């Protein structure tokens, strides 16, 4: 059951925070009292969402290697540490969607940069902060937003599907490696949602048949709480 302020003290960073699922997560997490830092590319959109929600807005592109450490610096400095990272920002690859044989190499590279390398780099840069959270007894989790396209080979979804499949496998391996460090890694598939990304991929789909992003956001927060020991007793302090 959602209650105001029940996540007080939880420190969450997420990417792609100005639209779709990411925006719904920023709104939900801040409404429940979490301290949130979000990353997105557009400075005006970042400013607007930061003003609206009280979250820390960080302008950056996870697909750009040079942006990763400056983003990580702002995350940890603004939040004073980190309990959870949600790698949500995603690139579809070519839009409109294209058959693999019609996909430019650069389009595949772009999808891999945003959907695989970006989460890998940002997680690596923030792993020290997450491990520090575990050592202080707060627990830590990394949630990587996945898709059924990571599992099913849908025609036309080559760049996106291949990159999400790589992210899913990366998450599973990291989960095994970081278990002893106490850092939980999860892949979560939010389902087909009524988001700008989905509209780009399938312009003809009827929004009424799609999941609301805030429902998916609530599911992700529930999963987060189930996997970060101590997340709900944070009001007692570290």
């Amino acid at each position, binding site marked *: 059951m959602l209650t105001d302020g029940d996540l007080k003290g939880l420190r969450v960073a997420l990417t792609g925070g100005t639209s779709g699922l990411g925006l719904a997560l920023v709104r939900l997490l801040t409404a429940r009292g979490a301290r949130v830092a979000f990353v997105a590319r557009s400075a005006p959109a970042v400013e607007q969402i930061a003003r609206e929600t009280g979250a820390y807005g960080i302008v950056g592109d996870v697909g750009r290697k040079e942006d990763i450490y*400056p983003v990580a610096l702002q995350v940890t400095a603004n939040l004073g*540490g980190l309990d959870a990272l949600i790698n949500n920002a995603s690139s579809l690859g070519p839009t409109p969607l294209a058959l693999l044989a019609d996909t430019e190499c650069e389009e595949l590279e772009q999808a891999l940069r945003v959907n695989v390398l970006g989460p890998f780099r940002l997680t690596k*840069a923030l792993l020290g*902060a997450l491990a520090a959270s575990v050592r202080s007894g707060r627990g830590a989790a990394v949630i990587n937003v996945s898709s059924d396209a990571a599992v099913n080979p849908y025609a036309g979804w080559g760049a996106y599907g291949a990159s999400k499949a790589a992210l899913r496998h990366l998450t599973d391996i990291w989960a095994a490696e970081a278990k002893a460090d106490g850092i939980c890694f999860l892949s979560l598939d939010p389902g087909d949602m009524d988001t700008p990304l989905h509209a780009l991929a399938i312009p003809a789909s009827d929004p009424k048949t799609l999941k609301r992003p805030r429902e998916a956001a609530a599911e992700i927060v529930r999963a987060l709480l189930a996997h970060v020991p101590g997340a709900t007793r944070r009001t007692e302090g570290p």
Partner: protein
Amino acid sequence: MIVAGRGKRWSAKLLVADSAGGLRNLPRVALESLFEPGDLVVANDAATLPASLMGIHCVSGDAIEIRLAAWERVGDPTRFTALAFRGGDHRTPTEERMAASLARDDRLALGPLVAVVEHCLASRLYKLRFLGDRTNILAGLARHARPIQYAHVPELLALCDVWTKIAADPIALEPPSAGFALSWRVQASWRERGIGFATLTHAAGVSSTGDPALDARLPFDEPFCIGKRTAAAIAQTKACQRRVVAVGTTVVRALESAADENGGVRAGEGVARGRIGRKTPLRVVDALLTGVHQPGDSHFELLHAFADDAALQSIAATLCASGYRSHEFGDSLLIERRGLG
């Protein structure tokens, strides 16, 4: 990765100097097989703030470099004690750089940031205040500032070069570089072997000002924070008569500053003042993993707390003869304190 040894699997070396005067040359990867079950390794998990800003002294129009040297209040990026250099860059050794002469209320344009001189503390040393709110100052530092650079590292260092694997809260102004030896693999091996690992967070400040009178005052007072769990782990280690291994001189300063009468440490925030040297009794730390430093610099002088002159001479001679690389990104030395059983 541009710094030797970072990013590629390079063969860093480790000199182990035991309390009986014995010396062993090891590959640094052997760290994972050192220490005994029950021992506790304590490291500094501070990440490094980019603390060098190039810009313009608005009154004179001169190009300047500002190096953030110490926090006014740790974690608050609005006020710092800072060094000011005129023109040039890090490729000129710090001691050969010209001091910039600033006056109170002077404005400095530092990329997207504007700073105002609040006080003149000494030649080249000032108190600065950044204009704007905390989040915007952090964004400006993240985008415009670079880590403090070193004349002996010609390539530009980026943040990823100066954050250790365990880097968490960005409050160090130069990297706690002994921590570069700590890979996740090493930590996993220690865990499997029953060797404890704990951290504190110590805001390491600048290592060099370029001014002999100021350098004599280094290190400046440095704030630190020791968590309850780390203090408890140290108490347990001492109770079991096992060893506390400090990773880096910042950890020695913090732990010895926070030492209580029983060989434990007080949890909480503190400030490390003054230098550790030959007259400092070590009440907590039994061994130190550190970088390789030259006799004469403050990091090497700290080793006098661990070993006598003859032992240190022998260590220095071996480091030199065996071609150990010094400074922040070089090889490592593990030294046990004299009298350790």
